[in-house]
């Protein structure tokens, strides 16, 4: 169970695929428009329940509870060997290969 007062992430379907705007590419028309926001859970609930949260601005938002204590995982990425090649090339052109 997720306790009232926890910081959580909620999910909503804003528009079903059938309700999407005209003049969209075909692939986009086939999927719903989805929305996420975060806030403080206003009542005890289980993951998957429809809940109410108080967001950072104090707005009451409703949606499906999908995550507790959401956090970011974006990073500086994996090694990209091409960047070393660029660095070495630039130094060689500018400084004749010496440091």
């Amino acid at each position, binding site marked *: 169970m997720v306790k009232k007062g926890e910081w959580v992430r909620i999910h909503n379907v*804003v*528009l079903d695929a059938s*309700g*999407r*705007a005209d003049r*969209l*590419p075909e*692939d*986009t028309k*086939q*999927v*719903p*428009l*989805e*929305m*996420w*926001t*975060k*806030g403080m859970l206003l009542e005890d609930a289980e993951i998957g329940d429809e809940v109410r949260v108080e*967001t*950072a*601005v*104090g*707005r009451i938002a409703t949606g499906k509870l999908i995550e507790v204590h959401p956090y*970011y995982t*974006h*990073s*500086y*990425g*994996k*090694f*990209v060997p*091409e*960047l070393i*090649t*660029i*660095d070495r*090339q*630039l*130094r060689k*052109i*500018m400084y004749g290969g010496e440091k």
Partner: protein
Amino acid sequence: MALAKDYASVMGRSNEIMKTALGLDYQDFESGSVRFDYETLMKSTGYTLDEVSRIQTLTGVGHTPLWELRNISALSRKYAKPGYGARIFAKDEAANPSGSFKARRAATAVYHAKKLGYKGVIAATSGNYGAAVASQAAMQGLKCIIVQECYDSKGVGQPEIVEKARACEAYGAEVVQLTVGPELFYTFLSLLEDTGYFNASLYSPFGIAGVETLGYEIAMQCRETLGKDPEVVVCTNAGGGMITGTARGLIKAGATETEFIGASIDLTGLHMASDKQFNLKSCTTGHTGFGVPYATDPDHSDVPRSAARPLRYMDRYVYVTQGEVFYITEALANLDGLERGPAGNTALAAAFSLAQEYPEDAVIVISETEYTGAGKHIQPQLDFARSNGIDIHFGDPSEDKPGTNIVLPKDPGLIRYKEADIDRMRASLIRKSVQTHNPNPTAEDIAFLAEETKTDEAFVRSVLEQ
């Protein structure tokens, strides 16, 4: 009685919601035909350039350094004929509080919102502007909601956009994230209506007036340190606000001889509203997916009439590739010791190539840098591209195919901008304006369209006769 909140009902109240959320009635600027009074719209902010500068200074915005990129200039000179290879300077806008020039736009908008008594601000943006509005709202004590287009239907977010969500939250904002699609506007309107907050649109006159100080500072800094105005200013172009505001500021400073060149990453062929193609692009701004539609139809933004009108100011429009921008970003860090975000370096990639056409004593200024961070850096952006099946290799950037490959120039001499057909864009703007507002344009409309496209009435008439 509660208002109906379905898609059609909310979109139907769009004009009303906008009027309430901007404190501006755009009808005041309309002629009833093609022409609208752009300069009166710009004056409607009620702030002079000096006042905007003072407002920005209150929150530490502006007065950023202008750096000469000596080593990148020297590298470019190696590929120019003798006596050629202009000096390249960068306005280090990353030094603004939120790490980009967008702080200038946000400072003015948020100040105005507060003055009018709004309790909060909302902006629809996946870019640096979100962090800028959130940072300004924090400083000026307003609430802030940022609405982002962030994920594809599999829930995979663009690392650059995810980073901006993190930054907005760090500044205390609520970030509402959506999957791909222009119906984001519906969510945006609905939030404006529910909260009564101010629409801190990128395209309001407040936003553009905020950029004028950037152009003004460039003119003053060049005069102080070089004794002249820059020959060329290159602006990364997406929504058009950068080049509009910068050019207006330079013109207000009296720099009437400076040439304004817009630069975008060429993403021709990728559809911006396509769910599948969303994560096949490796730069989320500064590209033609925004640059071209906003240049040819500025009024399809989140305000009835956009204050960002790039074709009014642009002398030339050039394209570079993702691979060229990534390469020059690495060069900026490695040769000139400035680690700055990739998208803002679009203008630098173009300037590197353009410089070779100008004499050694000519001055080319790129109007911005932006912060770099996790997700918003060449390594995660290239790694993300590779994980999405994009082929990354060294070669000739002319082999670039957006969504298929990223060609890193195998030699910096291969960084070559491509001239976009600006006359075609001008013609497109003229035709769209006429179609939308009046198929039988008046003499005043013709004069207006010449201003809109930095052309003359003969050009406008020739387009209309085609």
